[in-house]
């Protein structure tokens, strides 16, 4: 039952991602990507990581994608007729490189012996939390500092500079003030 569910969800993830990257409307692409992330979170749950599944939904689908939507709406990018569409000259090198990588994967998988058996022990949230705050406590501190630096950097970039901006985009800059 869980195996069948895994393959169905894998198909959902791949199809939603394909729709997302071939969509010319940026908002539709984000919505397809949220669908893909929900299916991926369910796959994480099936693979024994309920906490990561919850964070995937909360942070990825909830926060990051909404941030993308905010930026798209704020900059008014939701007009696909203004966006240059990739033509076939853009598509064929990307598809060729992807096909080469996928082909090498298939050759690799077909020609090797099965992986050594692992140690299928369940990971409880208690194990996860104890290891996170004891063995990897320094990493948590570093990540928190990284988030702080990103916050400072985003504040600096978002600050409106008076000089040099006004003569560049005169009336537009005045309008958004």
């Amino acid at each position, binding site marked *: 039952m*869980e195996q069948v569910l895994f393959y169905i969800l894998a198909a959902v993830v791949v199809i939603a991602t*394909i729709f997302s990257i071939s969509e010319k409307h940026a908002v539709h692409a984000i919505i397809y990507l949220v669908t893909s992330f929900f299916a991926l979170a369910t796959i994480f749950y099936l693979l024994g990581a309920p906490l990561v599944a919850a964070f995937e939904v909360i942070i990825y689908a909830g926060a990051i994608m909404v941030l993308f939507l905010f930026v798209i709406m704020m900059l008014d990018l939701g007009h696909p007729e203004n966006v240059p569409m990739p033509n076939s000259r853009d598509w064929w090198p*990307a598809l060729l490189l992807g096909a080469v990588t996928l082909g090498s994967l298939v050759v690799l998988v077909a020609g090797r012996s099965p992986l050594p058996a692992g140690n299928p022990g369940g990971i409880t949230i208690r194990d996860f939390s104890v290891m996170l705050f004891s063995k990897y406590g320094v990493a948590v501190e570093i990540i928190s500092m990284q988030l702080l630096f990103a916050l400072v950097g985003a504040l600096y*970039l978002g600050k409106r500079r008076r000089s040099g901006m006004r003569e560049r985009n005169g009336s537009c800059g005045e309008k958004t003030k």
Partner: protein
Amino acid sequence: MIVPLTHVLILAVILFILGLICVLVWRTNIIMMLIGIEIMLNAAILVFIGGANHWGAADGQIFSLMIVAMTSAEVSLALALVVYLHRRKRTVNTDEFNSMKG
């Protein structure tokens, strides 16, 4: 382990290649390039989760959490850059961003 680790890795590789194709195809649109990077990072998270499940160790789950935190920092900075560049040039087309300082 409900499915072999190989199948999880194949799914992750397919996702990674889709993200790579997204970055390569939409290399004139900065928003779609960021979406491609998100897809690739999700493939990396999937590899970590599959490994953690296969070997029964919590380290993979911890590092997937680190990737999520790193991604949120990266996306906030990148979107601040997009807003800044859009304020300067009124576009998100990367071909227009061809000059430094002025």
